[in-house]
């Protein structure tokens, strides 16, 4: 009875018929679109306007970034598998996929740390030219978002380990999933416009 009241209190629909938490989160993601849109636009405006190197074609490692892109894409797949497991009450699946998603996110972050370290050693820093400044700010903010997502998903994994994630709680996993997929689609755009369209 208490569980039903608890579930009902968190499932208030909006005038659109959507859960108010999901509606609010979509609004937040809209603001995030504007945030990353401005960073990507800034990168594109200053593209090719650095008088001195290193230039993108000299330093960007496409094979390495392709692997990390694939890893992040697959983490999105694991995220929907985690949500499906929570929705159908599959505790083992929920534990497995809720660990797999942030684990893949951590691999992506490890690739990014390696890439940043290599670039700094090769002379590309925030201050050296316009490419360095716009590149590090854009990909750095994306990496910060991935880090937040990893911590968020690990907290859900701990809840799953304690058997505190039931089908009633599927919405909180779905909202974390919305965030994770958003981070993924931002990377899809960054990979195309920063790495492949040099």
């Amino acid at each position, binding site marked *: 009875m208490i569980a039903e009241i608890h579930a009902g209190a968190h*499932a208030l*629909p909006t*005038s*659109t*018929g*959507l859960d108010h938490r*999901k509606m609010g989160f979509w609004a937040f993601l809209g603001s995030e679109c504007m945030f990353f849109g401005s960073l990507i636009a800034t990168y594109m405006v200053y593209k090719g306007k650095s008088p001195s190197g290193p230039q993108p074609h000299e330093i960007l490692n*496409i094979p390495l970034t*392709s692997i990390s*892109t*694939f890893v992040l*894409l*697959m983490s*999105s*797949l694991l*995220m*929907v*598998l985690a*949500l*499906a497991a929570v*929705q159908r009450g599959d505790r083992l699946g929920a534990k497995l996929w809720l660990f797999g998603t942030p684990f893949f996110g951590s691999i992506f972050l490890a690739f990014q740390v390696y890439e940043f370290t290599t670039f700094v050693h090769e002379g590309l820093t925030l201050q050296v030219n316009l490419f360095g400044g716009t590149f590090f700010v854009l990909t750095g903010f994306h990496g910060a978002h991935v880090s937040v997502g990893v911590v968020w998903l690990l907290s859900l994994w701990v809840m799953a380990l304690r058997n505190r994630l039931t089908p009633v709680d599927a919405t909180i996993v*779905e909202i974390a*999933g*919305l965030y994770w*997929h*958003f981070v*993924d*689609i931002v990377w*899809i*755009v960054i*990979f*195309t*416009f920063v790495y*492949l*369209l040099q």
Partner: protein
Amino acid sequence: MEPTPSHPHPSIRTYLMVGAVLTVITAVEISVFYITALARYLAPMLIVLSAAKFSLVVMFFMHLRLTTASSGGSLRARSR
């Protein structure tokens, strides 16, 4: 206000198929990047492929296709 009945999400099979398609599109993007003969068409091809990946993630993984359908139905029911 009564809550809208929840709509079923895509099946695991659908998720796996979308994951496979995303992998294939990424592989095509990387291949196109290395094929010098396609350099002239690189930008439009990559933008289309990127938009396809973006749409697949938003429609299937973020369930926007189902969310739009359910909220649209709810609004129509409310306006009657």
